[in-house]
């Protein structure tokens, strides 16, 4: 008999706000967090085709974290720590009352600690002094530094994993946390997604892939425009999302407040191309279908989809094609939105932040807008995509997340019914 799994706490660091209160308010107002990148010193910004990103402004680690933890890790892990701290407080989970080995940590991260990585690499090649490479380089760059420091900071001794599947990383982290609790490996899993890699090299890499928006450098807030005819590529972002997942039994014992239930999950590969999705959307439709099957729900029961929707010409159309394929006539009645229209693509954090939006939507009945949806592309237009916040009863939400490497994930959340 599988344990039921619920979400009891949320935390976020994002380009539209640090903290769930700020984030959700901004999201409902349709506020954009996309701004011009000031500098990639020493390279002039004119040498970059794209010059904008969803940046977390004014993040001062010492405001949120103890130096003993913050100083050991790179920016992405500091984001993760900050989001987790908020989520644990939100859940009212006190680690001193928990059995440490029953609390796990699963983090999704795509690029990880490359701020430190690029700095040390540049210094090495400039100074040619290998013995001056910082001793903390490897611990900071290793991709499990966030899951490690989170466990360390909170005394969580249960399963500790990092999932790296590019842009679907933290959707898979949620799925793996679900599996972990369902099967009794842990009672609680601190689940997070984080990335902060707006760096000279990584950003240049995405520019060279011709994947980023380059047509709105002078008007950053309008650049991320999922489903719109003028979309021209994604906008890179940074941030973290954290969710406390626990078994329903454990949550009941603690009398915890429940946002939503995590009902299903699917993990698939298109086995097709490292970068390009299958244009027919068949595999994306299959992934959503498998997640609903796992949740023992039908497409007809889905009220809301938090789309992957990165604002790329091909990707957005593929996702809508898949939605039409699976949901058929219901496709026009499902609410669909794109959080990336406001925060950009936060890579490893995207799944977690999308799940937070799903949980808040189920809790409040509010679907935030998809900004810049001004001239709908007929290939992507659905009645359920809106430029303003909509209110409707929501019982079932579906989260999509697709990553390089032909990797797809879907997670089903539903309104918690005791």
């Amino acid at each position, binding site marked *: 008999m599988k344990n039921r799994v619920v979400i009891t706490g949320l935390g976020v660091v994002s380009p539209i706000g640090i903290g769930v209160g700020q984030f959700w308010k901004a999201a409902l107002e349709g506020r954009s967090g996309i701004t011009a990148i000031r500098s990639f010193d020493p390279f002039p910004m004119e040498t970059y085709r794209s010059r904008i990103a969803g940046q977390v402004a004014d993040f001062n680690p010492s405001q949120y974290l103890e130096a003993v933890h913050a100083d050991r890790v790179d920016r992405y892990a500091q984001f993760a720590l900050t989001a987790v701290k908020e989520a644990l407080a939100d859940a009212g989970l006190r680690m001193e009352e928990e059995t440490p080995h029953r609390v796990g940590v699963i983090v999704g991260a795509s690029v990880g600690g490359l701020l430190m990585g690029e700095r040390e690499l540049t210094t090495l090649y400039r100074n040619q002094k290998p013995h001056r490479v910082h001793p903390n380089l490897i611990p900071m760059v290793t991709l499990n530094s966030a899951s490690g420091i989170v466990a360390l900071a909170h005394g969580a001794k249960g399963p500790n994993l990092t999932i790296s599947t590019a842009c679907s990383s933290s959707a898979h982290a949620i799925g793996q946390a679900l599996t972990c609790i369902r099967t009794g490996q842990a009672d609680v899993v601190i689940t997070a997604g984080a990335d902060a890699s707006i760096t000279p090299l990584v950003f240049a890499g995405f520019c*060279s892939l*011709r994947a980023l928006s380059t047509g709105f*450098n002078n008007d950053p807030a309008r650049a991320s425009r999922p489903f719109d005819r003028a979309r021209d590529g994604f906008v890179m972002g940074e941030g973290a999302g954290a969710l406390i997942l626990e078994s329903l039994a454990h949550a009941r014992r603690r009398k915890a407040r429940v946002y939503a239930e995590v009902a299903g999950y699917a993990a698939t590969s298109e086995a097709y*191309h*490292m970068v*390009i999705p299958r244009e027919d959307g068949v595999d994306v439709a299959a992934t959503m279908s498998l997640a609903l099957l796992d949740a023992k729900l039908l497409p007809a029961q889905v009220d809301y989809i938090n789309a992957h929707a990165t604002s790329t*010409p091909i990707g957005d159309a593929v996702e809508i094609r898949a939605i039409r394929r699976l949901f058929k006539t219901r496709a026009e009645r499902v609410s669909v939105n794109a959080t990336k229209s406001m925060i950009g693509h936060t890579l490893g954090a995207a799944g977690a932040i999308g799940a937070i939006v799903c949980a808040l939507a189920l809790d409040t009945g509010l679907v935030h807008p998809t900004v810049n949806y001004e001239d709908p592309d007929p290939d992507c237009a659905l009645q359920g995509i809106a430029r303003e916040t909509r209110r409707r009863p929501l019982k079932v939400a579906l989260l999509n997340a697709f990553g390089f490497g032909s990797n797809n994930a879907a997670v089903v959340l539903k309104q918690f019914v005791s």
Partner: protein
Amino acid sequence: MAAESDIALRIRTALGDYLKRDPASIKPLHALREDLGLDSMATIELLYQIEEAFDLEIPDQDLQKLLTVADVIGYVEGRLRPSSPARATGRPAKRLPARKKG
């Protein structure tokens, strides 16, 4: 028929190297996608090599015009022509909103 330009030969050679086939089998009217089997990622990689070979930068919005081998040859020749603004200034042309691969 006019003799093939040095640029055209270099481009067909670059294509031949990338595709691991005899450059002589690559014709100007071959479509990059339909005839040479290049998907959007392969096209980007190929054009990266062309940029390197000719010391050019190809803006995103120009990529979508490059559908055949002849398009690529014509584009590079145009960019390298002494009267071309990009050549004259040594800076890439002003960018316009572009369609890109997703």
